[in-house]
């Protein structure tokens, strides 16, 4: 059982305070959705958790099974068990998925002997064109291919907690369904804990949240069960702003 504990997290970017007070506790197998309007600080939360340069933690703590995540460099946060699926996955010219995954497994001291077939299996499972495995990571991929590629990596690396930053942006319905379903399966197969950051509830058809949190103005203003997502579909975020 893994626990990610975010307590009173405050983050500034370029001198402006974006997150003021975010507390969340995510356990293995749980799916937590953080929903909020544009500008609420959703992507800042995911970037700060992963240690992206430019995101300055000004208060609070983040612990993964008691380990101070904020004291670790990005790569050690990943090897400790955090994984970020980016909203806009970066193109890495000249670097093949196979080589990146091989280096990532090496860092975890995991065997890479069957990496190629592992990638192929995971790619096939979510209909990711296996020919793309031999191309540079994300270069000239469509939006859907990028998210499928991100999801393959998650399945290969087998993190403890996944952070999905707007998985549903920039991709078609089919890709969204395949990726969301794969993450949902991982919550059962690998006991993956998930923090899914999103604007809309459409990916909840496959990836079922256990908890829904509303983030506005850098604060969690309400936490409840999955019924809160249904309510938001009707009322929108305006009731929670200001």
């Amino acid at each position: 059982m893994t626990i990610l504990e975010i307590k009173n997290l405050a983050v500034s970017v370029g001198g402006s305070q974006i997150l003021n007070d975010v507390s969340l506790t995510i356990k293995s197998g749980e799916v937590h959705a953080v929903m909020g309007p544009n500008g609420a600080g959703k992507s800042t939360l995911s970037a700060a958790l992963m240690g992206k340069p430019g995101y300055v933690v000004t208060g609070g703590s983040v612990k993964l099974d008691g380990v101070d995540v904020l004291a670790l460099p990005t790569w050690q946060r990943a090897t400790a068990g955090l994984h970020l699926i980016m909203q806009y996955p970066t193109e890495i010219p000249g670097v093949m998925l196979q080589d990146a995954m091989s280096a990532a497994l090496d860092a975890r001291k995991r065997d890479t002997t069957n990496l190629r077939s592992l990638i192929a299996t995971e790619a096939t499972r979510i209909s990711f064109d296996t020919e793309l495995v031999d191309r540079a990571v994300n270069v000239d991929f469509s939006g859907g291919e990028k998210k499928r590629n991100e999801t393959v990596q998650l399945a290969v690396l087998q993190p403890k907690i996944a952070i999905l930053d707007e998985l549903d942006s920039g991709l078609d319905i089919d890709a969204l369904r395949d990726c969301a379903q794969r993450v949902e399966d991982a919550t059962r197969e690998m006991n993956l804990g998930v923090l899914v950051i999103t604007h809309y509830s459409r990916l909840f058809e496959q990836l079922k949240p256990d908890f829904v949190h509303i983030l506005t103005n850098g604060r969690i203003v309400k936490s409840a069960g999955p019924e809160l997502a249904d309510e938001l579909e009707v009322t929108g975020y305006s009731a929670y702003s200001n």
Partner: protein
Amino acid sequence: MSTLALPTVDEEIWRYSRIGELDLGSFKLGKLSTKVDALSDAKQIVSSTSKVAARTSTDIFEELNGQHAQLTAIATAKNQVVAEPIVITHFLDESGVVAYSRLVVDANENSEVTIVERFVSSANAKSLVVPVVDIRASQSARVTYVAINELGAATWQIGYQQAVGQRDSTMQMFTVALGGDYARMRAEVRLEGQGASAQQVALYFADENQMHDFRTLQDHAAPRTHSNLLFKGAVKDTAKSVYTGLIRIRENATKSEAFQTNRNLTLSNGAWAESVPNLEIETNDVKCSHASTVGPIDEEQRFYLESRGIQPEIAERLVVLGFFDEVLNRLPALPFIAGLRELVSAKLLGAKS
């Protein structure tokens, strides 16, 4: 000796160079040991005694090369296709010498040949090599030339390449520069016949106190000619690099296309790279573009790989090798090409090459 004076950095073509540090008079004439590897039928077209046409010198180094050079001449017959590459390796072990090499390639009509020229010196050979390369591709000839600088860290190079293409000829000019103290190359292609095309592709990577210096020219002197240049470099530690490139489209070179791209990675705060692209177009109805960048590894790329759990130094190595693979993947398939990738990798890890 020459009547010409040493150039100075006041001349545009020597700007940013380290020519001011050179004491040419302190070097005595030295000799490269040269080895030619080729299949027996290809060996017959290689000679070191042929009379080759005199060369117009632009400066003292070319002039001295004309007086002292050790010649390698390669001439293909009409329609001859040389299947395997001809590999020329020059080696220099001595300090305190200047050595001149000259390679002349005459590719006759519709012939095809690939030549690789490697320059190697021992690590402490404090000497100067002055290579001059002349390539002449006749009508429809196809020439691939690869220059590889694996010189030791104390050796200087001041080099010249000129490739001239006639009608419908194709020339591919590759350069891989990893070695040398100050290593310079003036690389020029001149398209003289209609429909001639040339590609210039280079990889250069300097570390510690090395400096790589490239001056390129894509000279279009006939209609419907095509040139494409891709130079990719990296500098590490306190190394320096200079790229200056000119595309010249002459008045008669209508419907020509010329592209020039120079990309540089600065891998350390103390490293320095300069990139100066230039266009000189004397006619309309042409397609030209140039792009140049100098900067550190993209922060987003670095973060992406680190977010997968990859250590920063490994992430950097992946990105830089990926950056150079665009060049390495285009080189002719030869056993030592894989070794070049290893050399790049070793330099990234800070090991002495």
